[in-house]
């Protein structure tokens, strides 16, 4: 397949469990595809060069920077955005509840990226050490909180997840 520079291509992917598609050119970043073409503005865009982590989404369950990926590359894959973290009827996920309880956000700009990153972190490592928590969120920047409450939120989320009925 060759897609010309100006050509639009119907890009299909599963987003938050639902098949979605929209026409977009090859140069469309996944972050912009989610926000502009699919109207899912929960994914935030800060720096567009991979540094801030605001745009982090889950690609087949793994956290990735949506600003460093073209939507066409993600075609056929499964994406989870912050909109997809809550349970049935909008019940907040344990990670979301922990951020709320512990004041892990102020302006909330960085929050979608933290929530996606931490969701995957605690799935892979339900009982992280303090160092593992710091390492896990080290790629996400927050200009408001000073991080202390974010780290507390991650620990609290681990507790809430451990209490979840399995």
């Amino acid at each position, binding site marked *: 397949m060759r897609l010309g520079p100006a050509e639009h291509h119907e890009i299909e992917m599963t987003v938050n469990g639902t098949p979605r598609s929209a026409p977009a050119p090859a140069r469309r970043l996944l972050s912009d595809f989610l926000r502009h073409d699919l109207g899912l503005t929960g994914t935030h865009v800060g720096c567009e060069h991979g540094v801030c982590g605001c745009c982090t989404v889950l690609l087949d369950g793994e956290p990735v920077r949506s600003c460093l990926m*073209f939507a*066409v*590359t993600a075609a056929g894959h499964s994406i989870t955005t912050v909109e997809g973290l809550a349970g049935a009827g909008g019940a907040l996920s344990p990670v979301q509840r922990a951020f709320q309880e512990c004041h892990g956000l102020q302006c909330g700009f960085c929050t979608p990226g933290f929530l996606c990153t931490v969701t995957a972190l605690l799935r892979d490592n339900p009982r992280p050490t303090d160092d593992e928590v710091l390492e*896990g969120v080290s*790629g996400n920047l927050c200009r408001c909180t000073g991080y202390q409450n974010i780290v507390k939120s991650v620990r609290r989320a681990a507790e809430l997840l451990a209490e979840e009925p399995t």
Partner: protein
Amino acid sequence: MKPPAFAYHAPDTLGAALAALAEAGDGGKVLAGGQSLVPLLNMRLAAPAELVDINRITALDTLEVTAGGVRVGALARHSRVERSDAAAGVQPLLRRALENVAHPVIRNRGTVVGSLAHADPAAELPAVLALLDGTVEVRSATGRRTVPAGAFFTGPLESALLPGELAVSAFFPALPPRTGTAFRELSRRHGDYALAGVAVTVGLDEDLRVATARAGYLGVAATPVVLDLTGPALAAQEGRPAGECDWAEVGGYAAARLDPEPDIHASAEYRRTLAGVLTERALRAAAAEGGRSDS
């Protein structure tokens, strides 16, 4: 900012990728993990006419570990290689270096071979490949070649890859017996590109005296620098018990042989001093590990 327009190819076989690259010629560029290329596109520092996305070529998503070494396919992500206990067993420097490459989320997408092809002077993996005398396996529509690390890195962000070529894998040789390794770097913030860094190997003889010492540096020149520190290490253990060595002396020797450039992050003098200190610490740790690996 947004990337400039480009024509896009998404081949699912190596043959189709090589054909697309051959046709694209000078205007062609490989897209692997995109963790270096997409920032360059977003900042409009690069504007390739044709992008050949290799993410659908599952045949390149390989990690082969043998007693002889670790062969990493072009689509193996940093995170996969980092997590592989088999790879760390045969070549511990891979995991040790990868832990210092960006952040975990970036490592979920970025590829080891892409990092080599990108040839950033401050990147960890090129220094490791150079230290170990590894190789890069290169294919094009018309042929294949194996490029030794020493010839692969040709300048800052420049490799020996020619238009139409794809690096299909990289080989990191295993360690000889009784050899310890260590990796040390300093960056302003964890996950940033380092101000300077070093990967070392220290080999011990049967009496656990130091027999070889080598160091590969990042961030001190346009390409990775490898120093054989065996001579000074032998001299610096003269008259000392087995396993002990004046590593500060060897670090100083190494620093005197490096000629780093200043930039906005650090002066040349600071980088040189830093490289010497990191060398000392890494060699000490590697020698201790070499002694332990004897049992």
